[in-house]
């Protein structure tokens, strides 16, 4: 097999000023995967990472098609592909699960998004969420609501379907040092206080407190 299986793998994100190597790209995906797994709410989509990783996989698979049977390198490449595809699938799965779980809120948030704000959903996810909403609403109407007394023929999906609980605790590791993080008291006889989050340190605290730091990448959920 030729040595150039991924010779042109580093040209992703050409238009960005900071060029990411494939290895960095995979690291980004893994970060996003763990954050999504552990955060109670749906995080911003990382569709550009997803697209680039998919591209890498497709490219590699295409190269492997040309390799003759029984090539020792090919099987190592395939194992790597399997591993990356697992992370990718698992990541997209957790997102889809949350979209289904919180669909009215997710769509509401997307609707109320300011121009220029990063969008929560990728275009594909947005399409899926809308269909899911319509499908479910249609079903509930047809099966029950339509057959109920006139004053009960609607339910507020936003109130019926639960919201993510941002007050849940999460485990995290600090990637960039943060000062003066305000910790709210748990009980009436406690007082609020501030902590500094040293780089590399690990913590257990409420997601709400550090949610902005997750999206900036300053902390990693673990």
């Amino acid at each position, binding site marked *: 097999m030729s040595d150039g299986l991924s010779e042109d793998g580093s040209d992703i994100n050409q238009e960005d000023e900071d060029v990411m190597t494939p290895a960095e790209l995979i690291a980004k995906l893994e970060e996003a995967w763990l954050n999504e797994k552990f955060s109670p709410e749906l995080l911003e989509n990382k569709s550009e990472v*997803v*697209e680039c990783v*998919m*591209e890498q*996989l*497709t490219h590699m698979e295409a190269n492997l098609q040309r390799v003759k049977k029984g090539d020792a390198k090919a*099987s190592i490449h*395939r*194992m790597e592909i*399997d*591993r990356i*595809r*697992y992370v*990718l*699938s*698992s990541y*997209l*799965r957790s997102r*889809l699960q949350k979209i*289904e779980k919180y669909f009215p809120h997710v769509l509401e948030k997307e609707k109320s998004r300011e121009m220029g704000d990063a969008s929560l959903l990728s*275009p*594909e*996810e947005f*399409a*899926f969420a809308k*269909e*899911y909403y319509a*499908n*479910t609403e249609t*079903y*509930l109407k*047809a*099966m*029950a*609501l339509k*057959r*109920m*007394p006139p*004053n*009960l023929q609607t*339910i507020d999906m936003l109130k*019926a379907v639960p919201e993510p609980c941002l007050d849940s605790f999460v485990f995290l590791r600090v990637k960039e040092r943060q000062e003066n993080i305000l910790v709210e008291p748990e009980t009436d006889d406690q007082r609020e206080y501030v902590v500094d989050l040293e780089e590399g340190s690990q913590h257990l605290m409420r997601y709400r407190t550090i949610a902005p730091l997750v999206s900036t990448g300053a902390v990693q959920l673990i």
Partner: protein
Amino acid sequence: MFGEKALELVRELHRMSDGQLPAFNEDGVRQVLQEMEALFEQNQADVNEAKVEGRSELIPSIKLRHCCLLRNQRCLTAYLYDRLLRIRALRWEYGSVLPPNIRFHMSAEELQWFSQYKKSLATFMKSLGNGEGLDITQDTKPPKSLYIQVRCVKDHGELEIDDGTVILLKRNSQHFLPRWKCEQLIRQGVLEHVVS
């Protein structure tokens, strides 16, 4: 007591906490809707009377009936919604074609919801990676090896391997195959992963 029928529906699902889908309780649903209709009609009459004839002593009963109506609405919606979640799970566990004995447990509307869900999911998966597509219902466990040893638990017929070749899955035959080709059949209980 009012609301008992609706609550029975909820209990019925709650008892099967592993996510199995019991047969759609058409009777139960109809009875709840009938109860609601009756409650509503009575309330309409009483509200009229209370308004027209000023019988304010009817108001507590009206309010109670209204509460019962709301409770019924909640129970019925929760019943239907929870069933959807179970039906959703079937897509992930069985794949897009369900065994007849399970379809048999679904109402026509549920089947419709299922087929729409299938479609949405398929569209989503197809659109990933600029139309490259990625089946995210596969790869449910971290990969360990490219190939795995599997044993066929029941006669299944033919299985197509990626390169177009076909193999016969006959009870008690054993195969060494690409892992990702087997995953779904293992989940469906057709193949068994042999670890030795």
